[in-house]
């Protein structure tokens, strides 16, 4: 408990809130890395997942990738890329992109996959082109599941961005590694509190957005789930 109190004292110290390695700057770096990584991964993985869901081809591959990705140790990917690309942000960003893709792929694929064939057939029957079916029927209907994928990918990246500080001078993880090296446990626990708080806030925001998307794309589901309770 002493460490916890010391950590809060460390967090409250105004000198830790200024400068290049101050808390606000580290927080910004952390968020910047997270958003860059999730954006790159989304641009690559979402179209592929949507394509697989729409054509129903290669669904087994998605399952295999998602399962296999879980067993890859994050730290291993990070250190391997670090050895290959050297110290700096390139290696962690690349490693994090690889880690974020399975959740995004699975979310996009599973979302599109669950749109009923009657619905897409009806859309086809009234003369929508395949592109229109994807963009105006399947994506809106599966938005909550796709956002669910973005939510888990973001959470994974914001957590793992902590480890990026192991090979780059960036992010809130710096406080943990500096604290560890200098035996400054207050700084270490303070940094840990910051990362956990950030992750939980992001989780709550994204869960809220997902709920909102569900309400917009499936207004009728709301009443049925309410009845079941």
């Amino acid at each position, binding site marked *: *408990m002493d460490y916890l109190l010391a950590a809060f004292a460390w967090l409250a110290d105004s000198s830790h809130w200024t400068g290049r390695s101050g808390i606000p700057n580290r927080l910004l770096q952390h968020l910047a890395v997270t958003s860059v990584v999730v954006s790159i991964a989304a641009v690559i993985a979402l179209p592929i997942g949507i394509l697989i869901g729409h054509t129903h081809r290669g669904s087994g591959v998605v399952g295999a990738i998602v399962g296999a990705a879980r067993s890859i140790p994050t730290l291993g990917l990070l250190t*391997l890329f670090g050895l*290959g690309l050297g110290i700096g942000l390139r290696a962690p960003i690349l490693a994090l992109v690889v880690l974020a893709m399975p959740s995004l792929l699975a979310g996009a694929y599973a979302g599109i996959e669950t749109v009923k064939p009657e619905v897409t057939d009806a859309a086809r029957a009234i003369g929508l082109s395949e592109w229109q079916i994807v963009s105006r029927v399947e994506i809106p209907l599966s938005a909550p599941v796709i956002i669910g994928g973005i939510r888990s990918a973001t959470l994974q990246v914001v957590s793992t961005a902590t480890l990026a500080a192991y090979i780059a001078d960036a992010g809130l993880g710096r406080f943990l590694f500096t604290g560890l090296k200098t035996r400054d446990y207050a700084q270490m626990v303070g940094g840990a509190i910051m990362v956990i708080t950030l992750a939980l806030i992001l989780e709550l925001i994204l869960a809220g957005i997902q709920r909102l998307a569900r309400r917009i794309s499936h207004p009728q589901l709301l009443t049925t789930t309410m009845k079941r309770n």
Partner: protein
Amino acid sequence: MKWLSQNWEHVIGLMVNHLLLAIPAIVMSVIIAVPLGRLAQQKPWLGKPLLSFATLMYAVPSLPLLVIIPSVLGLPLRSSATMIVALTLYGVALMVRTAADGFASIDQGTHEAAIAIGHSRRSLFWKVNLPLAIPVLASGVRVVVVSTIALVTIGALLGQSSLGTLLTDGFQRGIVAEVLTGVVLTIVLAVLLDLLVVLAKNLLAPWVRSGRAAV
């Protein structure tokens, strides 16, 4: 391969350490998550907040959690107890929803028939509900096994010896073969334990074919 042939004794030792952290955590996760899942499924007023809490718990980043646990529980920073507590928290968070789904998957008619032929509450759980939930529970255990094995490596950043040590040590000394050995062996360990769970499931629930377990 050359690196591995020169260091295999060290590597085996690390693998044993890895398992000594992972297996207690996996076992504890299952022992805690199954009754919690049962409770969540039977009492929705308790289940809903419980499952939301599990989702939130799983969102907590691992390295910071490993740093926080010792200062909250008064454990030393480098202790297997810290690792096992953290891994168990994640394992329970991952599995409790699957456990609830497992008990919810049981056919209501079967449940009522079991009551009708005179099962007591206790034997209803042990002889009817638990065995019938095994296929779904096993799919949850598989996820816990694979993610726990991978997660153990994070402890190496704080000096907790496991296959993760090969990752940190290899990175610091610039030995690619060492890091690769760590990555590959961690995956191999996860795949082997996963196979063991599938095997156990097929023994315990021979009435389902493995391909349909997830349904």
